[in-house]
C-alpha cells in the first residue's frame, strides 16, 4: 500500500514535472463537517507554499463545491462513504483527482453550469442553490468525469497564475 500511495502522489500522466514539489493524498468520510475540516487543513498546507492568495481562494472554492456535491448527491447526505482526494502542484497548475463510490452523476456526465438572470427575479424568487457547478466550471482550466465500475472519478486543474 505504501508503494501505491507514493505512486499516486507522483506526476499524473502528461503533467509537467513537479516544480514546487507538493503533493497530498487524503481520504475523508463523506460528511459536510469532514469536508469543512479537510479544506481548512489543506488550505493551511497550500498557504505554506507561498501561492498567490487569489489562487488559494479559487482552489478552496472549487474543492468545496466538488466535495460537497459528492456528499450531498453521490452519497445523498447519508453520513458515510469515502472520498479520496489526491492533489498536487506542478509549476503553475493545481491538479486534483476526487474518487468516490456513490451514485453516478445524472446521465453519466458532468452537470452543466446553471446561470440565473438575477435582475429579472423578485426577492422571494432568488435562488438559494444551484451555483456549485457554475463556480466549478468558471474556476477550472480542465474538468473531466468518468464512471469506472462503481467509482466516480473527477479530475480537475486550476491555473495558479491567472
Amino acid at each position, binding site marked *: 500500500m505504501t508503494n501505491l500511495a507514493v505512486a499516486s502522489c507522483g506526476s499524473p500522466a502528461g503533467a509537467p514535472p513537479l516544480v514546487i514539489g507538493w503533493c497530498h493524498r487524503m481520504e475523508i468520510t463523506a460528511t*459536510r*463537517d469532514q*469536508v*469543512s475540516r479537510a*479544506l*481548512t487543513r489543506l488550505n493551511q498546507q497550500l498557504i505554506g507554499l507561498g501561492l498567490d*492568495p*487569489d489562487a488559494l*481562494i*479559487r482552489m*478552496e*472554492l472549487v474543492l*468545496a*463545491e466538488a466535495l*460537497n456535491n459528492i*456528499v*450531498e448527491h453521490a452519497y445523498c447526505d447519508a453520513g458515510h462513504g469515502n472520498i479520496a482526494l489526491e492533489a498536487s502542484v506542478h509549476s503553475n497548475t493545481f491538479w486534483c483527482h476526487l474518487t468516490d463510490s456513490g451514485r453516478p452523476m445524472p446521465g453519466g456526465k458532468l452537470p452543466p453550469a446553471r446561470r*440565473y438572470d*438575477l*435582475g429579472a427575479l*423578485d*426577492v*422571494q424568487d*432568488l*435562488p*438559494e*442553490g444551484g*451555483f*456549485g457547478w*457554475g*463556480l466549478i466550471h*468558471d*474556476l477550472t482550466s480542465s474538468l473531466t468525469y468518468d464512471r469506472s465500475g462503481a467509482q466516480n472519478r473527477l479530475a480537475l486543474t486550476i491555473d495558479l497564475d491567472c
Partner: protein
Amino acid sequence: MDITCETQGPVCIMRVISDRIDAAIAIQFKDLFRDMVACVTGPVVLDLGQVTFLDSSGLGAVVAARKLLGADRTLELAGLNPAVEKVMQLTRMNTVFLIHPDRDAALAAHGVAPAA
C-alpha cells in the same frame, strides 16, 4: 458559529462570528438568523468581516436570510473578505445586495455617525 446583534439608529448590525459560512454550518446560520431577526425591525446589515470563506451553500443561506426579511426590508452586506467577494462576483449576487466596505461605512450610509 454565532451572530451578534447591535442596533444603531434605524439599523441592526448582525455580525457573523465564524471564519466560514460553508455547507457544514449553512443551516445553523439560517436558523440563528431567523431567530434573531424576529426581534428587530428595519434594515439589517450583515457584517461578514470575520468570514474568510463562503461556499455556494453559505451563499444560499445568505440569500435565504435576505428572503426572510421580505421585500419591504433590506439586507445589506458589509466587510467582504476577498474570498467572499469572489463568490459574490462569480454568481452575480453582488448585483442583488447593497455591499458596504465595512460596518462604519454601512452605518454612515444610514446616517449614523461612527463612534468617536
